[in-house]
């Protein structure tokens, strides 16, 4: 066999690929689910923390900053492993899926809180004053004047961060989640052929190229146009 034939047999083996396609398709669906759940919960909790922080209640803000820094500092894999192997010892068993979801949600929450917070504080003080001077309350001003402006400028960095973190779903393979990478790996050991990995890579591309393109579009669309 020539070098290329050798490579083709190992990595582009159609027979093996066809055989394990359904498994990897399932992994694809699982990855999408996991990613969607992480994005929804992570962004919602990040925004909630930033809004709470804007009320300026000192001890609460210290707590928020501590939690945010903690989850920004820890490598996501460490959090996943800790939650998966550590929590059962504390009497709280989590499935691999739940541990991965919770870990990446916390990481996205932490990063998005910082981005939302930067967005909220970037809104000019004059906006607050104009709104309050017409009789709107703090909360009404936050909701109708400040948050809409903050969201607009947070969209590009948020999109990038969200994409980066959803790619972390591959880490779930470490704790037995059959997402794309996990499904590919087990297919690879069953078939003793690495072609399923190739299939997995293709699945990631199919999933993330549109997402990355969307991120690029969002970035150009919202780039400081007012």
């Amino acid at each position, binding site marked *: 066999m020539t070098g290329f034939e050798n490579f083709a047999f190992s990595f582009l083996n159609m027979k093996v690929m066809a055989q394990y396609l359904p498994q990897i398709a399932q992994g694809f669906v699982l990855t999408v689910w996991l990613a969607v759940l992480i994005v929804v919960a992570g962004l919602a909790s990040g925004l909630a923390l930033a809004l709470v922080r804007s009320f300026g209640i000192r001890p609460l803000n210290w707590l928020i900053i501590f939690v945010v820094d903690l989850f920004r500092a820890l490598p996501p894999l460490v959090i996943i492993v800790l939650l998966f192997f550590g929590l059962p010892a504390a009497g709280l068993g989590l499935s691999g899926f739940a541990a991965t979801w919770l870990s990446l949600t916390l990481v996205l929450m932490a990063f998005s809180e910082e981005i939302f917070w930067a967005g909220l504080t970037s809104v000019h003080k004059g906006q607050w004053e*104009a709104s309050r*001077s017409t*009789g*709107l309350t703090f909360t009404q001003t936050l909701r109708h004047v400040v948050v809409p402006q903050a969201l607009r400028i947070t969209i590009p960095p948020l999109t990038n961060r969200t994409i980066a973190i959803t790619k972390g779903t591959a880490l779930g393979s470490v704790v037995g989640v059959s997402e794309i990478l996990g499904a590919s790996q087990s297919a690879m050991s069953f078939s003793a052929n690495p072609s399923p990995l190739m299939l997995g890579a293709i699945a990631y591309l199919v999933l993330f190229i549109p997402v990355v393109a969307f991120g690029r579009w969002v970035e150009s669309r919202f780039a400081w146009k007012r």
Partner: protein
Amino acid sequence: MRNAHSSPPIVQAHGLWKRFGALTVLKGVDLEVAEKQLVFIIGPSGSGKSTLLRCLNRLETPDDGAITIDGINLLSPKTDINKARQRIGMVFQSFNLYPHMTARQNVTLALRKVLGRGKEEADIAARHALDRVGLGERMDHFPAQLSGGQQQRVAIARAIALEPRVMLFDEPTSALDPELVGGVLSVMRELRESGMTMVVVSHEMAFARAAADTVIFMADGEKLEEGPPAQIFEQPQHERTRSFIRQIDRH
């Protein structure tokens, strides 16, 4: 000139003190504004004019003193400040329009959320206010699509739509190109003719001469001189007032 003594002053501020850290910005300032009067405040930069104005709607809280506006004790903890602010309009040097909202939405926001008006009713009031500042045709423009002068007029419409009892203007034309100043001043002129009570911080001396009932000169957190425009501009008592007016007139 209108009679300043027919009814109690709408704005009554007494002995206002304000410190920022070690810096004392207001040193026992008094201010009274009778209904339908226009009080014009001048003074060098940093003399506390903005701070005084901002105390009058409690964007700043004075450390000491008393403020009553239209019978409401502004500094009492029992006062609902959001309710009080409906009656006190403010216009800022930097316009501060909401950039994500059209001119109409800028005006209707408080009408709907503060006064609780329905959408249609608020739209009618917004159109009326925008017509008054000559921008009825620009209702659906965003601030970025308007000139500075137009933005400032929308900001005035946003304030007057709430039908305030007093309007506070903090250097409303200072951020404008010279050719846009006139449009804003004529709107203010019209407001004054219609009987609005106004407190104006500005360097537009010609406007003060034509429209002010009282001119106040402030320096270093104190009211140094007060009187009708003719007196302050033609026969200032203090050397500081004199040199300040000379300096401004040269511009």
